[in-house]
């Protein structure tokens, strides 16, 4: 009977952890115009048309990416590339914001130099793009997305 109760407790905690195990995926992108654009990364498929319309580029390549598990207790550093870092503090949004929505405090760094600090509300699988500096080969973008 004790083992049965322990199993139930474990199952309950596991269920809680499954729900609380949202992750933040972030990547550094290079947007360019190409005669034969490469396939868009699957994470950006839904946003591809909108990105092309706003940024006027037809190809988006991932230069680097990383994924962090949400931790509401402390801020975390996300380092998708050697050049661009993000300091992220995440907390779960209210019911009015929608299920799975997070409030993110973000600070973007470029080679240790702070660029911008922002607060954003992000629903699951809803990417937020940051238009960074222009490189000789294209436009640098940073993307963040909450993954359920």
């Amino acid at each position: 009977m004790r083992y049965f109760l322990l199993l139930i407790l474990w199952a309950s905690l596991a269920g809680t952890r499954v729900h609380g195990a949202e992750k933040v995926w972030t990547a550094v992108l290079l947007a360019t115009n190409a005669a034969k654009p490469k396939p868009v990364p699957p994470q950006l498929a839904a946003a591809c048309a909108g990105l092309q319309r706003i940024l006027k580029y037809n190809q988006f390549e991932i230069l680097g990416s990383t994924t962090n598990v949400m931790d509401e207790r402390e801020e975390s550093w996300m380092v998708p590339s050697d050049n661009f870092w993000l300091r992220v503090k995440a907390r779960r949004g209210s019911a009015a914001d929608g299920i799975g929505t997070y409030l993110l405090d973000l600070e973007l760094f470029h080679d240790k130099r702070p660029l911008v600090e922002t607060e954003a509300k992000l629903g699951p699988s809803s990417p937020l793009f940051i238009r960074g500096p222009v490189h000789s080969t294209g436009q640098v973008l940073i993307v963040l997305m909450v993954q359920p």
Partner: protein
Amino acid sequence: MKTFEEKYTAWVDGRLSGKELQAFEQEVEGMEAAESDRREVHQLGALLRSHAAGGGLPVLEPVVEFDRAVLDQITASERGWRQAPGSWSSGWLALAGAACLAVAAAGYALLVPKAAVPVPYFAEITSVRAADPSIFATAIQDPSGQVTVLWIDGLDYLPDTYKLR
């Protein structure tokens, strides 16, 4: 010297005689209640004697090993009483376990979003603060295109020599 009550009880029971009986009957003469009491006691005694002699009353015989039977019942009930809490709590524990499973399953079904259900796009920039006065940041939102861009101007151009890693 006998008290009145002692004499009265002896008179009702018919245990007074001689001068003592005469003296007491003179004393209670005219007391209807005393004579009535005495008459009822005599009638009751006669009734009991007649039934006992004629077999009207059941003959009570001691039950064989009556004491042992009572003790056996007490012992059995005590044993059951001691076992009851254990079996009762086990039942409750099983019930509580089943309830926990039901709650966990319901919570999972209600709270964990299903992968098959499309999640509406939602991204909103609520505040922006540039770290440098030369930097300007603007939020551009296109919910229909599922794109929200924090557009930063004023950043340094990155030449060929700058290696993006």
